[in-house]
């Protein structure tokens, strides 16, 4: 019997190995040709530059005309914003921070919602999402409602609606009802349901962080029946608990500073959960250097 990895290797290879890409070397050569080969006629100069062109016309064409398809300066690039996106694990919502382009509220809200689409999805492999690719088209705030125009006919079942409600309300800092406008003309209104938020959620670190001496862990508890203390564990690559303890919650937030300087380098899992309820945990994988 063949090894499962070999099956996958063969499967992906079979899917594309007999495709014959068209030859594009000529096109690449044309696009990377030295600018001197490209000719730009002097008449391209505007009338306003004509006087200057008498003296420096050739240099001007040589200097400006050659920028061609260069990319715009980096200084003009959009800045980024961090948004909280909500994903599903064990029938509860967990928040994960992601980076989107900065911009007006509605644009950031739409960008955050698009992170819920399966093609983008969570960084944490424990999380899943209920939204298909192309699900979100537009976010409009009007008449004390948040309208979300969908690219699909209806809101997917399960926690998908609450994923989107928590995400869009978080970005817009509003708890206004969310109206989903389906592509097929349907319209459904959803209110925020705090009961589906995970009791404990890790905000920081992000999945996969590499740390040296101290691992700082921060997070929140759900506003609905918040636990007053939470328990935490640090598990080594074999799954053995190498450190554990509890910490108190203040203003729905908690934080830990774990000394990992004595741990053997490797991949560790930090888990937090309400005291006495280890099944309702949130975890992050970190690498100790």
């Amino acid at each position, binding site marked *: 019997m063949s090894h499962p990895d070999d099956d996958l290797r063969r499967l992906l290879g079979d899917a594309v190995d007999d495709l014959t890409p068209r030859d594009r070397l000529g096109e690449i050569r044309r696009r990377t040709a030295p600018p001197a080969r490209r000719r730009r006629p002097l008449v391209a100069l505007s009338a306003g530059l004509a006087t200057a062109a008498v003296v420096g016309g050739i240099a001007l064409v040589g200097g400006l005309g050659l920028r061609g398809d260069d990319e715009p300066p980096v200084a003009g690039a959009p800045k980024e914003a961090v948004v909280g996106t909500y994903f599903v694990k064990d029938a509860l919502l967990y928040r994960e921070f992601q980076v989107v382009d900065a911009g007006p509220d509605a644009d950031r809200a739409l960008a955050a919602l698009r992170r819920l689409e399966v093609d983008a999805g969570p960084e944490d492999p424990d999380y899943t999402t209920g939204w298909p690719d192309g699900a979100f088209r537009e976010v409009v705030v009007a008449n004390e409602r948040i309208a979300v125009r969908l690219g699909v006919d209806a809101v997917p079942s399960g926690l998908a609606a609450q994923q989107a409600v928590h995400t869009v309300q978080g970005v817009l800092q509003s708890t206004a009802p969310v109206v989903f406008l389906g592509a097929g003309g349907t319209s459904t209104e959803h209110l925020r349901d705090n009961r589906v938020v995970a009791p404990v959620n890790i905000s920081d670190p992000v999945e996969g962080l590499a740390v040296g001496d101290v691992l700082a862990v921060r997070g929140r508890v759900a506003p609905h029946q918040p636990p007053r203390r939470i328990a935490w564990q640090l598990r080594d690559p074999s799954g053995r608990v190498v450190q554990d303890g509890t910490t108190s919650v203040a203003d729905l937030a908690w934080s830990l500073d774990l000394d990992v300087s004595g741990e053997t380098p490797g*991949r560790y899992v930090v888990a937090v959960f309400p005291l006495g309820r280890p099944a309702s945990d949130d975890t992050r994988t970190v690498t100790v250097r």
Partner: protein
Amino acid sequence: MSDADAALESLYVAHWDQLVRLSVLLVRDLGQAEEVVQDAFVELHKRWALLDDPGRAPAYLRQTVVNRSRSALRHRGVVQRHLARQHRVDDAAPADEPVLADSRRRAVLDALQRLPRRQREVLALRYYLDLSESEIAETLGISRGAVKSHASRGSAALRPLLAPHQKDGL
């Protein structure tokens, strides 16, 4: 011919086909994959003088192809949404549909498209390009632990979807 031109031609001969096929696994469209990889070659040429080590050029190309494939998918989503608004019905088959008509190929590419983006990228780099965990981690800018998790979840998700085709005599 400059150093960059010569290097680009050698890289083209060695990697063009494989990088286009990698991009097909990510974007499921041969024409778009060719665009993505062509742009990656042009970008490499522009930045050739900034490369510390020309030996890293294949890794740079690979990373650019993955990043540009991701952007292409997102752009395609925007375009599709726009078209849907304009016409409601857009049933025209993509230009390369005949090329992708083979049912097994479609099943594999469709299954990959249903996976979360990270899982799809990790699987393509691991099982198509045969990269090591650390090479994948570097290409995607994630930890080796995350590579492991995405690979294990991705392959678990893929196996049942592809099982009928494996039984076809693979």
